[in-house]
C-alpha cells in the first residue's frame, strides 16, 4: 500500500486520538498525552511529506464524506514539502507543549485548548493535500477556526487577547471569503472543481477570469501569510496566543498562505503575465522592509518575532515573484533558483521561528513578561535556553553559519544573475529587489542582536527577570530538536536539493535548479555555488584556532570588569534597553515609523532651572493599521450604529418591513 496514504491516515488518526485524550483525561496527564499525540501526528505527517517529496504521489476521492462534492485528496511533491514542514513543526512543538502547558489544567492546559491542538495540526496537514476546491476550502476553514480558538486560550487572562482574537477572526474570515470567491469563480469558469480539472482547463481561461482569480486568491492567501498591508492580525495574534500556538502559527500556518499562492498561481493557473509577479514582488518587498523595521523597534519579544514573520514572508514572496517574472521572461535557470530560494526559506523560517517562539515562551514562562526592556540577565539563569535561542537568532539574522543565510544567498544569486535580455522591467526590478533584500538583511541583524543582547545578556532589569529559572526538560528538548533541525538546514541544505528539483519540475518551471548538488549547493545554469558545510567548518575553525593559538602562545588572559565611568556601582539602569538600542534606527526611519514621543519635564518648586524629574514616553503605532484600517473600522461602526435605528423594537415597524419586502419581491417577479 502507498506509504503516503498510510502515513497520512496515521497522522489524522493520531490527531483525533490526541484530541479525544485532551477531552477525557484528567489535568495531570492531559498535557503529556496531547503532546505525545501531537508529536506522533507530526512525525507521521512528516513521513508522508518525505515520501511525497521523494516522488510518491497519492490520490483518493471519498464521495460520501461531504455532501455534493465529496472529499478529494491529492499529494504531489509540492504538497509533500508543506506536509513535511507542518509535520516537523508539529513534532517539535508537541514536545515543547508538554512542559509549557504543564499540569495546571487552566488556560492553555484547559480541556478545550489542549484538545484543539492536534485538531489544528490535522487541519494544517489537510490543507496541502486537499485535491479539490471544496476540500481545500473545508480544510482551510477548519484551520482558521481551530487556530482562532487556540489564540483565545487565555482570553480570561487579559483583554488584549480578546482584541487579538477579534482582529484575527475578522481578518481570517475576510480572507476566507475572498479565497472562496476566487476559487469558486475558477471552478465555475473551468466547469470542474477538482484541482486536476482546473489545471486542465486553466489554459482556456480568459485573462480577465484568471487575473481576477489571481487577485482574489492572492489577497486571501497573503493575509493568511501576514504580508503587509494585510498583516495587522499577525502581531496581535502571535503575541497574545500561548507560545506553542504562536510557534505553530508562525512556523507552519502562515506558510500555508505561501502554499496557497504557489498552488493557485503557479500550479492551477500555470503562471501568468508580468504584472502579477510585479504586484506580488511589491507586496513582498513592502512586507520585508516594513516587517523588519517594525521588528527592529519593537520592545515586546513576541511582537518582534511576529513582525519578523512578516519580513520573512516578504522575502519568500519576493522569491516567488522573481521566479514567476524570470519564468515569464524565459530565464528558467534563474526562475528555478528563485523558486528553490523561496521554498528553502519556508523551511528555514519554520525552523528558526518555531525555535524562537518557543524560546519566547520559555522566557514568558520563567519571568511572566515579554517586554525586552524588563528582561536581561537570562544567560546566567537560563543558560540552555539562551544557547538554543542564539542558534535561532543566528538563523533569523541570516548570518553564516545560520540557516537563514543559505536561502537569502540563493535568492540574491537568482536576482543578481538575471540576464539583461529579460527586458526593461526585469532589468529595473531585479536590482531594486536586491537592494530590498540587502537592507532587510542588515536591519535583521540589528533586530536579532537587540533581541538576544537586551533580552538575555547583561544584568536583569526587573525582579521578575532576576528570579528566572531554567525551563523544564521537555521544553528544552522541544527547542533542542528545533535547533538541531536549524543546524542541519544550515550545514547541509543540500539534502533538500532533490525535493526542490522535483517541486520546480512539478510546477513546470522547467529546470531542476539544484541538480547535482552534493556538499556544495550548486545552481544549474548559473555559474555559482556555495558550500555551507565548509563555511560552518571555516567559521568554527577560525574561532577555535584563534583560541588555541592564544593559549599556545602562553599569553595570560587579562580580565577587566565593566566600566561604570567612575560613577559606580554599576546598575542595570546603565544598560542598553531594547528601546535605547533601537533609537538610532528609529531616528533614521522616522518618516516611515512615525513614532509618537512625549518628554515631560517637571521643574523643582524653587527654580525653573532645576529639573526634578524627566519622563519619556514613546509609542510606535502600526502606521498601516492606523491609516488603512481605522477609517474602515470607524465607517463600519457608523453603519452598524445607523442600522440600529431600523430595529427599534416596534412590532408594527417589523410588519411593515415584511410587507414592503413581499411587495418588492412580487413586483420584481412580475416585471421579470
Amino acid at each position, binding site marked *: 500500500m502507498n506509504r503516503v496514504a498510510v502515513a497520512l491516515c496515521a497522522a489524522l488518526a493520531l490527531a483525533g486520538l490526541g484530541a479525544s485524550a485532551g477531552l477525557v483525561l484528567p489535568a495531570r496527564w492531559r498535557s503529556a498525552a496531547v503532546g505525545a499525540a501531537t508529536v506522533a501526528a507530526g512525525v507521521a505527517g512528516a513521513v508522508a511529506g518525505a515520501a511525497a517529496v521523494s516522488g510518491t504521489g497519492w490520490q483518493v476521492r471519498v464521495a460520501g464524506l461531504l455532501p455534493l462534492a465529496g472529499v478529494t485528496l491529492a499529494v504531489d511533491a509540492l504538497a509533500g514539502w508543506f506536509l513535511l514542514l507542518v509535520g516537523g513543526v508539529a513534532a517539535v512543538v508537541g514536545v515543547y507543549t508538554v512542559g509549557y502547558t504543564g499540569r495546571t489544567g487552566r488556560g492553555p492546559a484547559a480541556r478545550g485548548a489542549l484538545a484543539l491542538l492536534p485538531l489544528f495540526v490535522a487541519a494544517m496537514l489537510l490543507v496541502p493535500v486537499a485535491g479539490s476546491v471544496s476540500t481545500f476550502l473545508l480544510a482551510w476553514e477548519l484551520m482558521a477556526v481551530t487556530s482562532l480558538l487556540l489564540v483565545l486560550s487565555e482570553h480570561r487572562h487579559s483583554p488584549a487577547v480578546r482584541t487579538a482574537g477579534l482582529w484575527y477572526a475578522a481578518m481570517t474570515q475576510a480572507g476566507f471569503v475572498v479565497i472562496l470567491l476566487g476559487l469558486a469563480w475558477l471552478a465555475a469558469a473551468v466547469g470542474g472543481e477538482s484541482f486536476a480539472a482546473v489545471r486542465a482547463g486553466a489554459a482556456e481561461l480568459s485573462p480577465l477570469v484568471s487575473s481576477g482569480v489571481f487577485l482574489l486568491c492572492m489577497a486571501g492567501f497573503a493575509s493568511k501569510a501576514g504580508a503587509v498591508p494585510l498583516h495587522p492580525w499577525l502581531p496581535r495574534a502571535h503575541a497574545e496566543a500561548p507560545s506553542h500556538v504562536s510557534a505553530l502559527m508562525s512556523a507552519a500556518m502562515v506558510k500555508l498562505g505561501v502554499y496557497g499562492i504557489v498552488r493557485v498561481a503557479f500550479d492551477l493557473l500555470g503562471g501568468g503575465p508580468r504584472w502579477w509577479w510585479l504586484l506580488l514582488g511589491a507586496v513582498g518587498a513592502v512586507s520585508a522592509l516594513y516587517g523588519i523595521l517594525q521588528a527592529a523597534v519593537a520592545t515586546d519579544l513576541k511582537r518582534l518575532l511576529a513582525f519578523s514573520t512578516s519580513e520573512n514572508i516578504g522575502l519568500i514572496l519576493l522569491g516567488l515573484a522573481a521566479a514567476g517574472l524570470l519564468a515569464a521572461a524565459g530565464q528558467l535557470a534563474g526562475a528555478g533558483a528563485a523558486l528553490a530560494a523561496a521554498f528553502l526559506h519556508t523551511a528555514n523560517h519554520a525552523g528558526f521561528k518555531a525555535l524562537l517562539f518557543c524560546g519566547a515562551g520559555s522566557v514568558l514562562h520563567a519571568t511572566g513578561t515579554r517586554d525586552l526592556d524588563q528582561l536581561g540577565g537570562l544567560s546566567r539563569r537560563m543558560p540552555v535556553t539562551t544557547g538554543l535561542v542564539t542558534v535561532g537568532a543566528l538563523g533569523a539574522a541570516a548570518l553564516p553559519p545560520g540557516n537563514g543565510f543559505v536561502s537569502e544567498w540563493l535568492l540574491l544569486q537568482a536576482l543578481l544573475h538575471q540576464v539583461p535580455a529579460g527586458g526593461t522591467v526585469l532589468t529595473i526590478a531585479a536590482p531594486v529587489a536586491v537592494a530590498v533584500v540587502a537592507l532587510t538583511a542588515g536591519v535583521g541583524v540589528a533586530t536579532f542582536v537587540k533581541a538576544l543582547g537586551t533580552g538575555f545578556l547583561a544584568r536583569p532589569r526587573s525582579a521578575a527577570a532576576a528570579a528566572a529559572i531554567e525551563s523544564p526538560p521537555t521544553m528544552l528538548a522541544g527547542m533542542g530538536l528545533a535547533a538541531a533541525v536549524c543546524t542541519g538546514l544550515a550545514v547541509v541544505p543540500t539534502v533538500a536539493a532533490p525535493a526542490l528539483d522535483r517541486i520546480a519540475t512539478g510546477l513546470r518551471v522547467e529546470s531542476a535548479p539544484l541538480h547535482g548538488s552534493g556538499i556544495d549547493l550548486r545552481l544549474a545554469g548559473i555559474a555559482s555555488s556555495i558550500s555551507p558545510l565548509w563555511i560552518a567548518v571555516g567559521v568554527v575553525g577560525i574561532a577555535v584556532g584563534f583560541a588555541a593559538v592564544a593559549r599556545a602562545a602562553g599569553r595570560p588572559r587579562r580580565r*577587566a570588569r565593566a566600566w561604570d565611568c567612575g560613577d559606580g556601582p554599576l546598575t542595570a539602569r546603565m544598560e542598553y534597553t531594547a528601546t535605547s538600542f533601537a533609537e538610532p534606527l528609529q531616528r533614521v526611519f522616522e518618516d516611515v515609523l512615525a513614532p509618537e514621543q512625549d518628554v515631560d519635564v517637571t521643574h523643582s518648586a524653587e527654580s525653573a532651572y532645576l529639573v526634578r524629574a524627566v519622563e519619556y514616553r514613546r509609542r510606535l503605532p502600526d502606521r498601516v493599521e492606523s491609516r488603512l484600517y481605522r477609517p474602515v473600522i470607524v465607517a463600519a461602526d457608523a453603519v452598524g450604529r445607523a442600522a440600529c435605528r431600523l430595529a427599534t423594537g416596534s412590532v408594527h415597524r417589523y410588519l411593515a418591513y415584511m410587507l414592503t419586502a413581499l411587495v418588492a419581491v412580487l413586483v420584481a417577479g412580475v416585471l421579470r
Partner: protein
Amino acid sequence: MPVEPLPAAAGLGGSVQVRHVDAGSCNGCEIELGQAFSPVYDAERHGVRLVASPRHADVLTVTGPVTVNMAGPLRKTYEAMPEPRLVVAVGDCARDCGMFAGGYGVHGPVATVVPVDLQVPGCPPEPAAIVSALRRLSGR
C-alpha cells in the same frame, strides 16, 4: 635615540594603550601631553596610543595633585584596568603635589592613591620628556 626599557612593561609587547586621568592638575600638564601626541612629537609612532576607557588601557597617566574629590575616581579607574597595569605620574604635582602641597582640597601625591611605576618631572614636563617616558614602556 634608543631608550632604556622598563622591565615591568615587558609584557606589553611594544603596544601601549594609555588612559589619562586629570586628578586635579592646572591643565598645564594636559597641554604638554596633548603636544606629545601631536604631529610634531607623535608618540603614536612609538607604539603608544590614547584610549577612551580604562578597560582598554595598559597604562594610566595621571597629572596633578590628587584632590579629595578625585581620589576615589582615580582608584576606581585603576581598578578597572586589566592586569598587568602601569601608572605614570606626569608632572611635579603628580609626584609630590608641587606648588599645591598642603592645599585644603589636596589629598596627596599620586603614589598615595595608586602604585606609581614611572615619574616624569617638570612643571610642566616637556612633551619630549613625556614621549621618552612613554617610550620606556613601549620599548620602541
